[in-house]
């Protein structure tokens, strides 16, 4: 019912100025916004900045620990290569893993998380071509891929001892880990958290804009605006500019505080800008659909939780399926992670940027359309 027409810069400026004043006077968001920044920055700095790649492997009986050079087979002679700790028997080894106790020699505090219990006649069996059973004890915290690696290590040890391979089969891969190979250069948890924290900031600002928008629609102040020469397109663009500016400034501030701009400033800023547009689009959508603050919050959270999944997936690589790539936020998250944590440039991130841009524009257009319809029926 309402025609859009072209955008009037004067109207957009006036509405943005008014919106920012309203935002600055909203006690809830003026408390939540800095609080969220402080909390997210604190979470970042409190997380470990390094990756502990060391692992302590218990071996029983002790004789085999001395004979089998498992450490050199599993890695190299670096300080973070597996440390072999002998145990008197399988039972004591299992207890140590169950209890999470430190290694019995006491020189290092790391608990034993993996144990290899060899049969007493392991070497003889391997040499005579029989198939001995090696029991692998692992703590619940050990990732499955490490279990596979140890199986391979045992097989190699048997091969070294006997000269012939053991019939060990490895499980087929059922998950695809995307991204560059970070073997030997794993990202610390805080670096993997960065996109998630930035995304939470964008989410907070998205909810702020949505609630302001819902208030504007429900109080019908927007009807008063549209009774002036301002058009509905001016309102939509102004709300988008306000939301994008708020989200972008807060997310950029967080990235500054977390020292994320050491390299690749432009790709990272571009990625954050894309995320801000995406969230502004979500805010238009939820703000227009919500009837009041609680309704908007409910809608907003319900809509935004799925969008955080790609960021969570970075925390636990390989833990989710590839379907998350279809989520609107996947490209943006990959772009933020790639530029901020992996140091990738525009060329490397062309696909995430392209999909992020498409989704951002699509959501913004959808949000604008819903808002225009809501305004027309107000």
């Amino acid at each position: 019912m309402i025609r859009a027409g072209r955008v009037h810069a004067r109207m957009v400026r006036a509405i943005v100025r008014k919106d920012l004043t309203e935002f600055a006077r909203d006690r809830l968001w003026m408390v939540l916004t800095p609080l969220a920044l402080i909390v997210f920055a604190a979470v970042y700095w409190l997380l470990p900045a390094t990756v502990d790649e060391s692992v302590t492997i218990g071996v029983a009986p002790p004789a085999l620990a001395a004979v089998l050079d498992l450490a050199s087979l599993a890695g190299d002679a670096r300080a973070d290569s597996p440390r072999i700790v002998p145990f008197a028997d399988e039972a004591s080894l299992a207890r140590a893993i169950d209890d999470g106790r430190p290694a019995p020699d006491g020189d290092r505090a790391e608990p034993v998380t993996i144990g290899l219990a060899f049969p007493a006649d392991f070497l003889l069996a391997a040499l005579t071509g029989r198939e001995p059973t090696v029991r692998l004890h692992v703590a619940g915290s050990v990732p499955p891929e490490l279990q596979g690696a140890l199986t391979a290590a045992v097989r190699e040890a048997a091969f070294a001892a006997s000269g012939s391979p053991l019939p060990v089969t490895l499980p087929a891969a059922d998950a695809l880990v995307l991204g560059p190979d970070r073997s030997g250069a794993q990202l610390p948890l805080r670096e993997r958290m960065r996109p998630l924290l930035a995304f939470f900031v964008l989410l907070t600002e998205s909810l702020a804009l949505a609630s302001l928008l819902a208030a504007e629609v429900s109080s019908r102040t927007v009807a008063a605006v549209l009774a002036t020469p301002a058009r509905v397109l001016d309102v939509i663009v102004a709300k988008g500019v306000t939301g994008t500016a708020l989200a972008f400034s807060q997310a950029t501030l967080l990235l500054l505080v977390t020292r994320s701009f050491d390299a690749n400033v432009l790709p990272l800023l571009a990625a954050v800008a894309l995320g801000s547009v995406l969230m502004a689009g979500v805010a238009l959508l939820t703000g227009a659909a919500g009837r009041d603050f609680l309704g908007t919050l409910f809608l907003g959270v319900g809509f935004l939780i799925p969008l955080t999944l790609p960021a969570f997936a970075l925390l636990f690589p390989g833990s989710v399926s590839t379907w998350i790539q279809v989520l609107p936020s996947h490209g943006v998250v990959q772009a933020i992670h790639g530029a901020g944590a992996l140091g990738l440039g525009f060329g490397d991130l062309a696909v995430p940027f392209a999909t992020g841009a498409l989704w951002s524009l699509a959501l913004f257009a959808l949000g604008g359309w819903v808002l225009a319809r809501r305004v027309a029926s107000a």
Partner: protein
Amino acid sequence: MRAVTETTRTGSAPRTGPRPLALDVRALRFAYGDRIALHGIDVAVAPGEVLGFLGPNGAGKSTTIKVITGQLLPSGGEVRVLGMDVTKRRSEVQARIGVGFEEKNLYASLSGAENLLFFARLFGIGRPDVDGLLARVGLSERGHDRVSGYSKGMRQRLMMARALINDPDVLILDEPTDGLDPTSARTIRDLIRERAANGTAVLLTTHDMWEADELADRVVFLHEGRIYAEGPPEDLKLRHGKRNVRIRFREDGLVREVVVPLDGPDASQRLAQATAGVDLLTVHTEEATLETVFVEMTGRGLT
């Protein structure tokens, strides 16, 4: 362009010749889906004229206002403001009209002055006389306070100031004195009279029949999307209402009362007979009100 013949408050005789219309609505139709809200109505307001736009809730008043102000596109018919087609020159039309909404749709976290400044910016007014407007509606002292702390009357007065921020040629007011205390209501009515006297065309919707009678040069009765009657309040009352004189007198030590109808022939004679030779106590005229006229015409009240 159509024109109206200006009439006096009693509707008895034209004051001047025809003048161009400030607001000219012809055969306006509008439908919300299958539900027809307006069945081809005609409304005209001349510069300096106050038109009372009356009708119960759901009659189509708000829809008409939304179409006039360019918020809705008509399903049919034509709306011209100051000679401009609203559907074709919406921005130009909106720059020349002021709208006072029924709901107090003000920005509560902004001050009164900030509300006015914001709307002045939307109208492209470089240096609006915000302080002057606030003074005119009696908000000088509270103009820089946030609207969230305003009373209902103060909000309504600020709404009026907002409607005047662009010095409009056409003023559209929806229930401008609804729920106000007498002093605030009087301030608003004085402003409406003042604007009309300065040549602004005023379209006024109200449930207050006394107010319509007091302010409007003409009234339109809208019901179920159709216009039932139109004309000066006095004309409508004379045309559709009953006129009586209630006479109280003392007789044999008792107070008695008779009602003399003035309609029909020989009214003067009947009145003379009723008052001749009696100990008169009071004489009251009983005129029809706009509400009774409306009820008589539509079969229902205005609320």
